[in-house]
């Protein structure tokens, strides 16, 4: 009697365990179903490399958006990655445990601040600053990069800190006992040992920056064009979807889903790389 109840429980739990995989498949199927036929119908080349996005003229080229997303993401990484990794190393190696126990949760709080709030601060503080001191419209690649760079800091710090914290103390002691200074032991031993975790944090942060929508809409300016300088106003893939989804229908809506397909593919690729980097790192140890 009891054992058959156990079997029912096991079966029920197994069904629940499929929930995340089922959701993932559902999402993939529905985004692809809406987007892929459009890409095929419109032409892969014309869609990816087309320079004009003019839905009222049935022109759906997303090349400017692809380049803009690339610029903004790379810019965010240039700002966020060095700061984040430096912070993670500093917190782990050069700060007393008690201080770290206060600072780390504080930084994780940074992750809880809604993206729209970051975006708004970008609009109210950063964009006027850029406009006044560097020229251009203010709402630009640069503004978006800075805001995104700040937003990905918690991701990088939190994952990198865990990776560095997982390096066995014996490694450090071995380096120090050979006469290395604290810093030498960090960059010759600790960083190498924690490399896979740090790389994974950067790739995951890249996925976040690429996928961020609301903050970017607010600070990037949203002009559809290929940027020439960091002070140009741009529209990213995500911004394109979110801005036009409300009033789109028919072909136009399919084009937006097609944009989502491209975004999803790139992010899945990034995640796949991050996951295999982490797994590879674990296997090596």
């Amino acid at each position, binding site marked *: 009697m009891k054992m058959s109840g156990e079997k029912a429980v096991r079966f029920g739990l197994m069904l629940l365990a499929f929930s995340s995989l089922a959701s993932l498949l559902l*999402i993939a199927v529905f985004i692809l179903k809406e987007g892929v036929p459009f890409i095929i119908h419109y032409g892969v080349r014309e869609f990816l490399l087309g320079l004009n996005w003019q839905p009222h003229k049935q022109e759906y080229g997303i090349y400017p958006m692809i380049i803009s997303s690339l610029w903004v993401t790379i810019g965010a990484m240039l700002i966020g990655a060095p*700061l984040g990794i*430096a912070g993670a190393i500093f917190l782990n190696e050069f700060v007393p445990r008690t201080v770290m126990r206060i600072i780390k949760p504080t930084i994780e709080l940074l992750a*809880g601040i809604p993206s729209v*709030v970051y975006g708004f601060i970008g609009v109210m503080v950063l964009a006027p600053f850029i406009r006044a001191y560097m020229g251009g419209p203010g709402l630009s690649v640069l503004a978006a990069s800075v805001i995104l760079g700040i937003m990905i*800091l918690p991701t990088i710090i939190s994952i990198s800190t865990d990776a560095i914290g997982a390096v066995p103390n014996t490694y450090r002691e071995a380096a120090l006992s050979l006469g290395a*200074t604290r810093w030498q032991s960090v960059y010759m031993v600790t960083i190498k040992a924690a490399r896979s975790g740090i790389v994974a944090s950067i790739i995951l942060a890249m996925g976040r920056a690429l996928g961020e929508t609301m903050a970017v809409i607010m600070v990037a300016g949203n002009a559809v064009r290929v940027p020439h300088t960091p002070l140009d106003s741009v529209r990213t893939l995500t911004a394109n979807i979110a801005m036009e989804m409300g009033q789109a229908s028919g072909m136009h809506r399919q084009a937006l889903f097609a944009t989502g397909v491209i975004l999803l593919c790139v992010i*899945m690729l990034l995640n796949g790389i991050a996951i295999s980097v982490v797994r590879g790192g674990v296997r090596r140890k």
Partner: protein
Amino acid sequence: MRIPPRYSQILAVGLMGAATLLTLLVLVFVVVFVLGKGLPAVNLQFLFGMPRDMGRAGGILPAIVGTVLLPLVAIAIAMPLGVGTAVYLAEYTRETRLTKVLRFGTDCLAGIPSIIFGLFGFIFFVVMLKMGWCLLSGGLTLAIMILPTIIRTSEEAIRAVPNAYREVSFSLGATRWETVLKVVLPNALPGIVTGVMLGVGRSVGETAAVIFTAGSALRLPATMFDSVRTMAVHFYILAREGISAENAYGTAAVLIISILLINLATYGMMHRMLAARTK
């Protein structure tokens, strides 16, 4: 030229310290700036009043109600799924090809950007299932979004329960399910609650996935099939459409305070439960 090790150490530590300080200053600046600009607008009428003129005047009560209800719906859906999944992975199966696939699915889901969740929720719940922009559509979408967090934190918490407790429970004639209910889950509770609170925090701050699924009606919802507007969405609309900077700041202040409180409550609860266990 080679810099002597002692100086390179001072230089490196100085730079890294400056980077850490900068990070902290940015956090403090964001919070202080928003609270400084927003708190003057916040009073009881703002919190408990109905909005007038699209939010240009009046209060934000519907947005507060929406911000409370939507995460509740999401948690009510995601928690059984997530904790059940975690129990299955940690207690009922060994590492097999199936669990690897399930884990991979969870990892992938965690990496999907919120705008994609918004697109999916819109086309699936709102359009295809004809549910429209409503509390339930938004709650289901958010539930999928926070599922990976709940699964991971719960599984970690469950695995951290000492194996000796399970052995004792089995040796006293408990079935696996009884062991899970009486020993494993109570001891994993702080970790599970942490995961749930992380999910709540993410839901409260989310905009892109919410705006296309729960809509943005500025009314008090009467049923699960009514559209709601959360504070994050309200703030976005006020700020983006230039309706009222003053009320936008006010909403942002309330939003940030709520999120800080959620985080503090999470820490507090964890500590209290840990303390209660060793009492």
